[in-house]
């Protein structure tokens, strides 16, 4: 089988720095090749170089790319334009920004169809939308991107990419911005389309699980170089390169489990029936016409020195719940008590928060020392240089870094600073809002290790909010699964992750791409999560639930307790 794409010794430089350095690989028709690597390793630039769409500052310094018998780098721009979309097409990471918000989906697909002349306008667009599994394609073709959910937008992007009937599809992190259940749907769709159309797929991803599930062959990139190219099965049985081995070692699956310190440590935080409803205002007089029930009656308990993880997909209200517990958002109803006292009346000293985005959570205009000292001064903790140096040392940084600005640090280091800031006021509970989701796997492993180390040393309790269920096992003692503002299942890690009963939890667990490759039977939930402004009647999950019964459509299930601390809300068990 001759290769469709032949990349030889490709090198890209930004200024004098080589960011892609001698990359060579082949891709045959119908084959999937995954470029795997952490952020900044040059995998996206490699893809852009193939399309000759590099940003202005980057230059191809040498190398040779053959696509379908043509030398790409010697083609004139006009031929290259026909090739983009017609011969090779791209799907980008962020579906929200890759579609033009003021054009209908049908028009946008039609534009590509007209350019590459595969089929005629409107009918072709509908056909393509149907092919990517969008229900009711005639109506959707006339809609604007904002009317579509994230998963549907990504499907529409795929439809656009298919419009020119490309031979090669380049997918640059196609599912990173999507929830796991949606990611599973999109990955299955890509695989199915590839099989039917015989396309080659160049998949760019940082997620080992996605690569294991999709690829025939895997290439690992590190610092601009392709350090290992291998057959998928062989690669996941035993990676050869030390860097690949390090990647595997830092996967949460391969981290040691947290020691169980016993459940009887005493209750620290008790949340009862917490609710946050945002009013929807319409019209000239801004009258309230409804409510977004972001958090709708959440009750949970965190014990001293233990970690409770709240797991859920985006929009399920988990972050809002965390902020409402900290009173950053005023709850509509419910009580939050710390050690039996109402948190509203307390100084914010005992509870602190670590935020998701380490780039947004540190004021770029303040020096690290000032950032850490701010909370200490506000709460009357003595903030001298020695104390700040100690804190920095505790999170694995140097005391001398206090006089630097945040931009001088990497994402992982910034997250350490954010942790030091939270610890500065000696809290007993730290709410961690997706503290690792903006970080690379290897850095994620370090931060999780740091959090666990600090827990052991200081007896901290964590409320760990995450969408990444694979992290939970290695950090948390207890888990609560949220869906549309309510907790649907909670219990200890063993009870929930290994004995999941709620169909949603089961689907969530099944949707996580595992590195052991294709797990045989997969429970794929169809559709998108409903809007919290108009939750479906009865059980919120019933429109997507494979086991939905008549009763699920009418009544929201009450809490049923299984063995031990395992509780869930599902009619199957009541």
């Amino acid at each position, binding site marked *: 089988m001759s290769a469709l794409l032949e990349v030889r010794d490709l090198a890209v430089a930004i200024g004098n720095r080589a960011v892609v350095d001698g990359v060579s690989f082949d891709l045959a028709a119908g084959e999937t090749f995954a470029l795997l690597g952490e952020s900044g390793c040059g995998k996206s630039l490699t893809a852009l170089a193939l399309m000759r769409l590099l940003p202005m500052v980057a230059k191809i310094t040498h190398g040779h790319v053959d696509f379908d018998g043509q030398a790409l780098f010697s083609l004139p721009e006009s031929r290259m334009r026909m090739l983009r979309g017609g011969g090779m097409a791209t799907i980008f990471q962020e579906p929200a920004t890759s579609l033009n918000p003021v054009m209908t989906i049908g028009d946008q697909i039609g534009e590509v169809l007209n350019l590459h002349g595969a089929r005629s306008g409107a009918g072709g667009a509908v056909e393509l939308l149907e092919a990517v599994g969008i229900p009711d394609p005639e109506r959707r073709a006339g809609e604007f991107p904002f009317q579509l959910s994230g998963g549907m937008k990504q499907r529409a992007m795929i439809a656009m990419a298919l419009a020119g009937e490309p031979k090669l599809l380049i997918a640059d992190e196609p599912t990173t911005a999507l929830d796991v259940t949606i990611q599973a749907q999109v990955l299955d769709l890509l695989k199915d389309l590839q099989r039917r159309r015989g396309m080659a797929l160049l998949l760019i991803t940082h997620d080992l699980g996605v690569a294991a599930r999709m690829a025939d062959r895997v290439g690992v990139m590190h610092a601009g170089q392709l350090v290992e190219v291998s057959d998928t099965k062989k690669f996941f049985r035993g990676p050869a390169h030390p860097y690949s081995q390090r990647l595997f070692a830092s996967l949460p699956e391969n981290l040691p489990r947290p020691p169980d310190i016993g459940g009887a440590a005493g209750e620290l935080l008790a949340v009862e029936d917490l609710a946050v409803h945002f009013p929807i205002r319409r019209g000239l007089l801004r009258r309230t016409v409804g409510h977004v029930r972001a958090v709708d009656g959440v009750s949970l308990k965190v014990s001293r020195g233990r970690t409770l993880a709240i797991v859920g997909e985006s929009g399920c209200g988990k972050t809002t719940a965390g902020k409402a517990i900290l009173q950053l958002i005023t709850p509509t109803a419910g009580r939050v008590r710390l050690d039996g006292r109402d948190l509203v009346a307390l100084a*914010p000293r005992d509870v*602190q*928060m670590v935020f998701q985005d380490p780039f947004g*959570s540190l*004021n770029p205009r303040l*020096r690290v020392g000032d950032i850490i000292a*701010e909370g200490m001064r506000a709460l009357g903790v003595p903030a001298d240089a020695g104390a700040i140096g100690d804190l920095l040392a505790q999170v694995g940084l140097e005391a001398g870094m206090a006089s630097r*600005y*945040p931009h001088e640090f990497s994402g992982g280091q910034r997250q350490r600073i954010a942790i030091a800031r939270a610890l500065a*006021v000696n809290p007993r509970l730290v709410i961690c809002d997706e503290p690792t989701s903006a970080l690379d796997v290897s850095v994620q492993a370090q931060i999780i290790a740091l959090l666990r180390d600090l827990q052991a040393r200081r007896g901290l309790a964590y409320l760990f909010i995450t969408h990444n269920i694979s992290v939970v096992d290695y950090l948390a003692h207890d888990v609560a699964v949220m869906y549309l503002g309510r907790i649907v299942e909670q219990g200890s890690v063993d009870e929930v992750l290994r004995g999941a009963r709620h169909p949603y939890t089961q689907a969530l667990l099944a949707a996580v791409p595992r590195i052991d490759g294709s797990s045989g039977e997969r429970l794929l939930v169809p559709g998108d999560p409903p809007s919290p402004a108009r939750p479906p009647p009865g059980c919120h999950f019933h429109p997507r639930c494979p086991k939905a019964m008549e009763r699920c459509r009418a009544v929201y299930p009450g809490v049923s307790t299984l063995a031990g601390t395992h509780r869930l809300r599902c009619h199957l068990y009541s």
Partner: protein
Amino acid sequence: MKPVILWSDALFFLLIAVMIAGAWWGRRQAHLRAGWARVFATRRSKIAVAVLAVFLAIGLVDSLHYRRQLPPEPGKPPAYAVEVLSALDALLMPLKTNTEKTYSEPLATHLFAKETLEDGERAFPPLKYPGSHLFGTDKVGQDVLYLTLKSIRTGLLIGTLTTLIMLPAAVLLGIVAGYVGGWVDDVIQYLYTTLNSIPGVLLIAAAVLMMQVVIDTHPDWFATAAERADARLLALCAILGITSWTGLCRLLRGETLKLREMEYVQAARAFGVGPLAIMLRHILPNLMHIVLIALVMDFSGLVLAEAVLSYVGIGVDPNTISFGTMINAARLELAREPMVWWSLAAAFTFMFVLVLAANLFADAVRDAFDPRAA
């Protein structure tokens, strides 16, 4: 000689004093000193600062006003001239007094227009001071270089005083509206939308005319014509300041709305840091680049606004020498045949150099204090 301190002089000196005090305080802060060292690191910003310093020095010297003592008459207390001069006038004495009859081209030896000489012949009469007028002379024979140098003080005053009036209002109201929200936001938005919906020139015209009436009905308030002109200049600055804060305020409100949701602001709130401290420590420093850019843009805009207002007749006092009055006069000069171009060219050159230097300096300051770029 009797010193005269006009109101605008006092404000100008106060401004300089605040700047010096700020610089003296800033020298002790290590990170500020490092920032300013970066400002002066490039040749471009050094030149810009040098040019600005020259302009500032001219403005400063021009702000030292005095009245000359008239020749003493025996048995009478010393009397002083009505005309208020400045130290700059004294320095430029030959330029100020070397006037011609009317227009002459730069460095010309003869007048610009033919005249009937005494012998009945029509010719270009020779100048009294041939070859000494670098930028030529204007309609009444005043040296244009002298006029441009005198205009610098007016331009600087209008640019800086107006900004000083406008800036606190724009920054304070913009940040408060964006951060506090609710009815406070509604009130502030209502205020600037209302102010914005009144045509600016109309509002300024009404205010300046009212001010003029006040000045005219109280001639006893002002000892000299210069003091009267100065009062009008200050009033103009105040009016321009009151009408021009809305744009920046709206910009800052929008940016604050964005910054308010940043996680570092939420982190500060989680520590129980008060709203005032958050606005000062977290919002304001992250808005400074916008403020700085708007400031420099407004500075040039205000100098131009003065020209427009002088054109309508509601600008500075007609006796005050300013870029605006020069540009206004150039309107008729350009309509002449042959055209008189040099006073406009001189005003343009000086304004251009001033605004360009201010822009380059502001750029350098913004870059030096942006922690991401440093």
